[in-house]
């Protein structure tokens, strides 16, 4: 397969799985496969960063291992943890057997007593999985340091056991909503892709792809409305995910065309705050959002 075909096939595979991608994203995914480097995807919430990793796993027909980051996430929850209860039981069982203490130590610090967490699990898979480290910006800065070895060497060092290397290098996708700045050390170990809100054509294509029964007119209206909405000073700007939610709701309501009344009734599909609600309602009164 030529290089051109390789990149085109990524776009086609994603298209088949209902994800409209652009050329830049397809190239970065191609480079993830060929350079075997992690990919850091940044962008506003709701633009499809997580979905991209999910679709990648489906298109590669491989497992998706997901690590959802949060404040306070530590190595014990992300990489590995010793099964202390099992270790204690084992020590008690061996107590009366006059076993050599060194041997007991070796036994309890073997892989049988290791609880694998997502990162370690990704290294142990026989077939390279897609490892999604979601919303890395929510984790503490200290956690980023834990990740560095994994991202650069695809290995985890366990002091009691040694270094565990990947059977097959996982495809690592990190996502960030930029709620805080990530360290340069982490960034340097990753390829980078910025995913922005979809433009009109892409958004229309997304809606039509996800809901083939939707009328072309309604899909265009939703996309155009969203494009205008994103220019308003909103605290939470709706992304592509909200457009799809809204389109689905409108389909359920058998709506074929947008008007002021139906938009007001379904505002909750894409507006997620009181202040934003008021802002949109005020603009809707002037009917600027519904007309070109």
């Amino acid at each position, binding site marked *: 397969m030529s290089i051109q075909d390789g990149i085109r096939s990524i776009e086609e595979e994603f298209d088949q799985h209902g994800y409209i991608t652009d050329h830049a994203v397809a*190239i970065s995914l191609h480079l993830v496969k060929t350079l075997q480097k992690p990919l850091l995807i940044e962008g506003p919430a709701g633009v499809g960063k997580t979905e991209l990793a999910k679709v990648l796993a489906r298109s590669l027909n491989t497992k998706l291992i997901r690590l959802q980051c949060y404040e306070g996430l530590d190595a014990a929850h992300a990489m590995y943890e010793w099964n202390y209860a099992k270790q204690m039981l084992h020590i008690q069982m061996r107590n009366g057997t006059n076993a050599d203490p060194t041997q007991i130590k070796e036994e309890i610090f073997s892989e049988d007593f290791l609880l694998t967490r997502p990162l370690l699990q990704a290294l142990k898979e026989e077939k390279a999985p897609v490892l999604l480290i979601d919303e890395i910006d929510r984790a503490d800065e200290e956690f980023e340091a834990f990740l560095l070895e994994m991202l650069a060497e695809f290995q985890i060092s366990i002091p009691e056991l040694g270094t565990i290397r990947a059977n097959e290098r996982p495809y690592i996708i990190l996502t960030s909503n930029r709620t805080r700045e990530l360290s340069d050390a982490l960034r340097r170990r990753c390829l980078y892709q910025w995913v922005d809100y979809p433009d009109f054509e892409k958004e229309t294509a997304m809606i039509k792809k996800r809901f083939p029964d939707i009328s072309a007119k309604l899909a265009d209206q939703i996309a155009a409305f969203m494009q205008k909405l994103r220019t308003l000073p909103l605290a939470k700007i709706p992304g592509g995910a909200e457009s799809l939610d809204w389109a689905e709701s409108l389909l359920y309501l058998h709506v074929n065309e947008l008007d002021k009344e139906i938009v007001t009734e379904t505002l909750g599909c894409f507006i997620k705050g009181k202040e934003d609600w008021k802002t949109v309602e005020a603009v809707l009164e002037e009917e600027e959002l519904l007309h070109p």
Partner: protein
Amino acid sequence: MILSFQPLSRTGNLTEYVLLFCQALRREGLLVGIQEEIDSLRALEAVAITNYEQFKFALQTVLCSGKEDIPIFEDVFYQYFEKKDDTREMQKRKTKDGQSDPHSPHNKRKSGSNDEPMTKTKRKQGKNKEMSSSFSYGADQQNTSEGLGQAIQFMAAKANKQSQKPREAIIPESDLDKMEKAAYRFIKALKLRQSRRTSSIDGLLLHGRKTIRRSMHTGGVPIDLMFKGKKPEQAKIVLLGDGSRSMAPYTPRFLQFAYCLTAKHRYTETFLFSNSLTHVTSQLKTEERYLPALHMYEDTWGSGTCIGDSLNEFVKQYSHAYLTRNTIVLIMSDGLDTSEAGQMKEALQEIKKKTSLLLWFNPLLGTPGYQPELTRIREALPYIDIFAEAHRLDSYVQVSREINKQR
């Protein structure tokens, strides 16, 4: 289409040219080291380099490490790899450069201590000079066979002559110990302010699982007790200093304060502005025993004052990272703003909305008879929690008391 070359000197091959390109990006402050150079060459082997889009996106994926890097990358890319069909696009880009760009590439990270900051003006000048020597990426090339070294010849870029002279800001050594004490008091005042808000019942409950896990290190004896509840977040301090000519007598003290705060408080970010904004935190952090000198260009230091524009630039570029409910923003300026009306008010409104405390140090407050009568200052006052003088060292001590009064 025929490829057009106007060679000044030839590098001979693509590898060398890409390395020159990487070096140019490094000079602009992008995180491009040896590994990135190797990766960029590997990436080019993995795509069809005769396809302009693939060529560009492959390099962008490898060499950019943040959203702010992308406009810088594009600027330099067009200098080095101009596509013939892109004349119109280039014209658009040039026009756009003349306007206020929300993605202004001032948000740069330093890849090395010797790297000089690059201003918007300087980049533009560099671009115009290098344009004639850049490689024209014609449509014919898309039909040529794939692979490195085929069908492509590159020229060396001219050295990026920078016409704008760098300026240096010196942090004074006098009374440094007193300023350190003032910074310490300031941090302490913020901690006291914060403690009331972060206390919760969760912090008093024992976390059984964490305590057992921690006790494994001490043979199962729970010496270190772990408690539920979130770790109290540390306050973030954002300092925005006006480096314009009118502030020249007062900024050295401000820089001294910023230096002391940076040394004592992990989450301190400092920005300086005059006509545009520059992030100088990395320059203030030093392992050396002597005080650092800050290197900037006249856009940031010793020029006019576009407070509104600079604050707006800060909000657009950095609010996502630095403005949280735990952030304290301190602006040091005399308020003599030349930005368009409403700009400063809009930025302060946004900062106030997202942060817990907004302080404004105005050195003119120390002038007898001064009243904040300027329209811009009057517009700003409703958003400012503490409006304090800052014309002498004691002002920095005094502000801690003001913060305590606000509790």
